[in-house]
Structure formats: C-alpha cells, structure tokens
C-alpha cells in the first residue's frame, strides 16, 4: 500500500474513532481534532497509544464507533484481571473478518475439499467463531466441535476424515498424547495441516507437532481488540506471519518510539477498515519484529516474526528479564524430555529462586541414577546458558504436570506477598 493510501486508511479510522467521546478527548489532548490533522505519518505517530485499560474504562460498549443497532455481534476477552474487554462488530466487519481468514487459509492451500475441525473455543473468545466464518467463507466443510472433550475430538477427527485442525499448539500436543492412549495413530487420520495460535509457541514445538501428527503446522495470530484470529498468518514458507492489509502495524520500544524494520519490540496495531470497533495504535503486549516486502507466496506487505513472548509474560528474576519461551527453547533442545514443563518462581530469604519441572519421557528413562542426574544437569546448563541465571531442574513423571485444554499454564509465581 502506498503512503497516501495508508494515510487515507489511517484518517478513516481516526474519523471513525472520533465518534466515541473518549477518543475525542484523548486525541484533542494530542492536538488532533479532525482526520485531516493527519497529514503525514509523523502526525499519526503523535496519536497516543490505546491499551487494554482504555477498554476497561469504557466497559462495556463505550468505545463502539457505530450505533448499537448496527452492531451485530460482540466478543470479549477473558478478564483475568478485572472486567473483560468487549469488542463489537458490524455486519460488514464480520464479512471483512471472514474474508481475511479465508484469504489466509487459501494461502496455505486449504480448499473447498478440506474438512476443518475447529477445536478453538466457541463463544466470547474469538478463536472458534473467527476460524469458523473464515472456513465457511472459503467453502470448506467445518466441524464446529469447539474445545475440550479430547477423546471425542479424536474419534470425529478419524471418522469424519478431518484434514485441517485449528486449536492452540499446546492442545495439539495434548491431542497427540491422547492419541497414544486411545490407540489412534497418525496413519488413521487424514490430517494434513494444523492452524495453531492464541498462545506463543516455538520452532521446536512446531517440529514436535509436525512429527507427531504428520502435518504441516501453521501459526495464526490475532486478538479480539484488533479483530480476532487472522490478523496475521504464516504461509507455507513459514518465514513469519503475513499481516493482512487491513491492519497497520508498528513496533515500539519501551519508551513508545517506533522501531525500524527488524528490531524487536512491542507490536502495535491500527485497523484501517473496521467500523464497529476501530482501534488506533493498540498495544498488543506481544513482542516481535516487522519486515516489509514480497513473499514467494505472493503476499505483499508487512510480515511479523512469530511472537516470541508477551510483555506481560516477562518474569523479573533476581533483576534479570526472563521469558518462559527462552526456557522452553532450552528444554526442547535436550532430547529425552517431553515438551511439558512448569516454571516455578519463588522467594526464599529475599532471594528469588527458579525451579523448572520437566517431564521425563518414557523412552529416555534409564535405570541408572547417574544418567538421570546427567540429563538433569544438562537441562540446567542449557537453561542457564540462555537466561544467565542458576536454575534447579526437577525431573517428574509423565503427565504429572496439569494439561490444558486451552492455553497452557507454564508459570507459577509464588513470590506474591513475599516481596
């Protein structure tokens, strides 16, 4: 998109958000009263960032930019801290979203012949319905099974001949575990592609999922505040997630300065053609970097690297910034353990302690304590190498770390109240 086209889209969103009094006030403080005040990209960058807190303050519908009779659907993100954040869609928004998801599916070779098992939760969470409408728009067969009920998932996957699976990557691994339990092998399934998102994951996890399920694993990204799943998605080249042209991305440093291409920072989005709930410079809290260009798959525009971590996920241990994803990479680089782990941060005598429970895999168990101790020390070394902090690894039995049917719980911070 050329600069003028972009500015036009940005002005359109400014015009749209100005329908909400909250934004009028916020933009006025930055000296922006009319869409025409955005003459250059620098003008645009004067616009204050929007964040989850803004949505909470305007709970539930305060930031909707269209009258309620034009809003046909709401979604909400879970309110782990306080009230949920609510977003609204007009009929046109829903159509646009479906088209965006359908385009992403087409890019990875999904066709009308595919049978798509949508195992994301259906409901206020955007995952289930977002994928669902995209699949229907494409014309594929959708199995709206939603999340959970793992044995049933597997039975239908086999009996209906599902070719595409949509769920969280940790649930994909959970399904692979359960396949062994119920005696279904990947050869019994017709699965060929998995579309996984809603939580950060790593290349190692991709490798694991691809091998165990015999599929290509594709990363999809999105959040309800921007639209839902499909804001960006990988193509089969898997060199990053292509951002749909309806969203303008920026990556910012901790002070809010726009970073050049390739530099990692917090991802911020502005919607360009959304009516019900337009967003201006919305902080995703996700860490990534951006590049602009043309991909072999035909996509032209912005591509983001897979989200390595969330700003919120960052743990500060003994003053050092640690991301769970770094620990995960380290664990998965050691053979003989399962990709299931739990990071426990605690505080003893005013000193932070870091312990990681790692499930031992049945194949790598050896009778000799020495070997087990070696494995444990090996994992400790790998983690210490990456994060630069001493760590205690504890090998535990398989399946002793609670499995999630949605987002995985990887961190237990027991320091609260011990500060």
């Amino acid at each position, binding site marked *: 998109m050329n600069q003028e086209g972009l500015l036009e889209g940005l002005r359109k969103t400014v015009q749209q958000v100005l329908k909400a009094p909250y934004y009028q006030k916020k933009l006025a403080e930055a000296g922006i009263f009319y869409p025409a005040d955005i003459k250059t990209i620098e003008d645009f960058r004067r616009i204050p960032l929007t964040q989850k807190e803004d949505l909470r303050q305007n709970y539930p519908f305060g930031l909707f930019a269209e009258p309620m009779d034009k809003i046909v659907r709401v979604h909400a993100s879970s309110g782990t801290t306080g009230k949920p954040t609510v977003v609204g869609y007009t009929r046109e928004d829903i159509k646009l979203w479906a088209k965006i998801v359908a385009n992403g599916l087409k890019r990875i070779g999904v066709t009308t012949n595919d049978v798509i098992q949508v195992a994301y939760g259906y409901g206020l969470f955007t995952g289930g319905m977002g994928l669902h409408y995209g699949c229907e728009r494409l014309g594929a067969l959708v199995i709206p099974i939603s999340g959970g009920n793992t044995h049933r998932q597997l039975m239908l996957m086999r009996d209906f001949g599902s070719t595409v699976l949509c769920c969280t990557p940790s649930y994909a691994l959970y399904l692979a575990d359960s396949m062994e339990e119920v005696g279904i092998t990947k050869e019994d399934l017709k699965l060929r592609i998995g579309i996984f998102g809603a939580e950060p994951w790593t290349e190692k996890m991709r490798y694991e999922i691809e091998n165990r399920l015999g599929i290509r694993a594709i990363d999809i990204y999105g959040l309800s505040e921007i639209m839902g799943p499909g804001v960006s998605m990988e193509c089969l080249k898997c060199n990053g997630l292509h951002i749909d042209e309806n969203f303008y991305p920026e990556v910012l440093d901790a002070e809010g300065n726009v970073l050049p291409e390739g530099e990692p920072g917090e991802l911020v989005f502005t919607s360009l053609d959304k009516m019900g709930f337009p967003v201006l410079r919305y902080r995703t809290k996700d860490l990534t970097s951006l590049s602009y260009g043309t991909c072999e798959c035909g996509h032209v525009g912005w591509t983001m690297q897979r989200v390595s971590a969330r700003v919120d996920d960052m743990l500060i241990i003994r003053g050092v910034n640690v991301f769970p994803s770094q620990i995960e990479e380290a664990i998965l680089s050691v053979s003989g353990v399962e990709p299931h782990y739990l990071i426990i941060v605690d505080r003893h005598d005013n000193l932070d302690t870091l312990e990681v429970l790692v499930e031992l895999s049945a194949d790598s*168990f050896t*009778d*000799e304590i020495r070997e087990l101790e070696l494995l*444990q020390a090996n994992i400790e070394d790998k983690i210490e190498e990456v994060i630069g902090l001493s760590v205690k690894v504890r*090998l535990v*039995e398989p*399946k*002793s770390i609670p499995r999630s049917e949605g987002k995985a719980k990887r961190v237990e911070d027991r320091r609260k109240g011990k500060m």
Partner: protein
Amino acid sequence: MLQLSIFLENAKGRLAEVLNILAELNVNIRALSLADTKDYGVLRIIVEDPETIAQELKKRDCIVKLTKVWTLKVPDRPGGLAETLNKLVMEDVIVEYMYAFVEKEKEQAQVVLRVRDNDLMQKAVAKHGLQ
C-alpha cells in the same frame, strides 16, 4: 534376568501408589531396592514375568524400564558375599549396584547385580562356576 526399574517422583505416597498397583496386578516382589536422590527415586524390583508387568505399568502411566541384571547365590555366612565379589573383581567386572533378595534359600543368600559390562560378567560366572 530382567529387572523392572520404575521412576518415582518424590511425592508423598507415590511409592505406596506404585506398590498398590503391583498388588492389584498380583505381583510378588522377590527382590527390591530403592535408589533415591533428593528429587526422585528409582524402584528396582525382581518379579515373575517382568515383560508383562512392564506393559501393565506403562498402561498406568508409570515410567518403566527392563534392565538386564544378574542374580547370584552367595553362601549365607560372614564373608560369603566378599568371596563372591573378589572373584568378580579378578575378572574386571564392575558392579554398578547390588541388592539382596527378600527370600533366602537354605544356607544361601541371593543377590541381584547390575554390572557395567555383561560380557565380562558372563565370563566370570562361567569361569568360577557362579550360580
């Protein structure tokens, strides 16, 4: 002989749980040793038909391994075990670990040995007529 080695997390009641499973499976433990570290343990047992029991334990989410071990009869008197071990040392056999049987034969005790090199052990057993 094959020994069952079972990984045990250091969690309250875990050993009892595993022993209860063995009881349900009607397994008689003939010899047993528990190696422990601060964080986990390894239960090593000698039972009838270890292959089948290993399968059953796997079905119940236990981490199990079959390990080749040797059993030797040793005279049940002071110095009996030392004598046997001296013979093994002469043949360069390195013992990784060892434990005794629960039951005893008349005048004889039995021990379970895990050795580093099974070929050397084979030779030592043959040469000294160990049983």
